[in-house]
């Protein structure tokens, strides 16, 4: 007999509340950002519905006992909201979770550096944050592909899966100089950055010497990096002549890939060449 009595009592309480103008509200526990949804109210008279979160606040006048409908694109910011219904004799409230939409619509792509030497192991890094159409961070795991395409030669590929909306990759710079396209893709959304790969440090310095009057004419072979790319004009090459304990140094910029200079032709002098940390050959000049 207890169950029927309980039901009877519950029904009586509900009827009493409704007759007193009390209201209730029914709504989904969770929706996707931007989705349409309904809030069912009970009671009679007029009320106000508030949807309150730290990212968005909505207010709507309602007729108690009716369904309040919210169109798609109305509640767009992911977060935890409190839905409050006022009016009648009491105030009711429920929690509402708004999750990010499922599909990626925007990527924030951080690529570094924008310029680097060729052939650098793990020299290029990329990080992405993935967002939906309402700029909510999509926190469920999503596959991301990264492609680094040089002007010539094979592209490099990297794959990653987002964790809490973030993913990253590291790639080697390619052997050939030039502008590479660095692309991140999630679903159908892509974002591109340009990475300039420049020749590395000179790999081998070779100079030759010949007499020119009272002077020695010193000239390097074309200066290249270890991948065979021409080192840019303007790179400084240093020639040093040691003679009887006296040292003379001349810095010369590369011009059309080679460095040229004239130094005194002392018999017994030692001449060296260097660029940055790279040392070239040594010449002992004797006559």
């Amino acid at each position, binding site marked *: 007999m207890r169950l029927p009595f309980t039901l009877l009592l519950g029904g009586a309480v509900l009827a009493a509340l409704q007759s007193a103008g009390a209201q209730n509200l029914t709504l989904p526990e*969770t929706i996707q950002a931007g989705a349409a949804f309904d809030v069912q109210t009970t009671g009679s008279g007029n009320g106000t519905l*508030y949807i*309150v*979160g*730290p*990212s*968005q*606040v*909505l*207010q709507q006048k309602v007729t108690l006992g009716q369904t309040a409908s919210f169109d798609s694109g109305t509640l767009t*910011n*992911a*977060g*935890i909201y*409190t839905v*409050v219904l*006022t009016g009648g004799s009491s*105030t009711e*409230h429920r*929690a509402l*979770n708004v*999750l*990010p939409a499922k599909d990626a619509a925007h990527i924030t792509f*951080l*690529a*570094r*550096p924008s310029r680097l030497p060729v052939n650098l192991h*793990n020299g290029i*890094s*990329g*990080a992405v*944050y993935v967002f939906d159409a309402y*700029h*909510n*961070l999509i*926190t469920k795991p999503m596959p991301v592909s990264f492609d680094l395409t040089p002007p010539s030669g094979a592209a490099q590929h990297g794959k990653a899966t987002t*964790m*809490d*909306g*973030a993913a*990253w990759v*590291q790639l080697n710079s390619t052997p050939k100089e030039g502008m590479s396209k660095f692309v991140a893709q999630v679903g159908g959304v892509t974002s591109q950055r340009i990475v300039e790969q420049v020749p590395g440090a000179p790999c081998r310095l070779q100079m030759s010497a010949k007499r020119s009057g009272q002077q020695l004419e010193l000239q390097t072979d074309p200066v290249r990096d270890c991948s065979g790319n021409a080192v840019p004009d303007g790179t400084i090459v240093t020639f040093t002549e040691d003679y009887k304990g006296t040292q003379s140094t001349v810095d010369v910029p590369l011009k059309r890939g080679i460095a040229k200079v004239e130094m005194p032709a002392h018999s017994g002098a030692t001449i060296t060449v260097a660029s940055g940390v790279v040392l070239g050959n040594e010449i002992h000049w004797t006559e």
Partner: protein
Amino acid sequence: MKFIGRSKDLKRLAAVLLVIATPLAFGADQPSVQVKPPDVHGPRPLAQQTAEAAVRDYLESWQEMKSALDQNRASLLNRDFEGEAKDKLSAAISGQIKAGIHTKYVDRSHNIQIVFYSPEGLSIQLVDNVEYDQQIFQNGKLLVTQPARARYVVVMTPSQVRWRVRIMQAQPE
């Protein structure tokens, strides 16, 4: 996990951050703060002082956010928020003003962990499991108190002198 220093240093970091967190709260509203050692996916080592600064600035951003939503003053967000986070909080404050309400967030506990440090060092991501009450006031009268447990996903970027919150998004724990 890449982190400069290992378990001993990480424990020290957690202890330091607990101390840092204490002055941020006031009186009975003081939240408890736990900071787990960073569990960073990413190739960049996370220096201890960087982790400390990010967590400290994040906790301070909560104070700023609470004040802004309580007083309906978006200008209070200028120090600690930027980008999407600032835009959305500002929009919420505009919505509160329009609706004639204000909101008081009473955070009871934070459980924070740094989970990502981007390779170029331009963003830090952390998660924070927060327990709080959301109190909604209309014309100075408390309408409702809604207790909540949320997992906040936060992305911070460096500015000249501090880490600022760029994304701050709650989801159910």
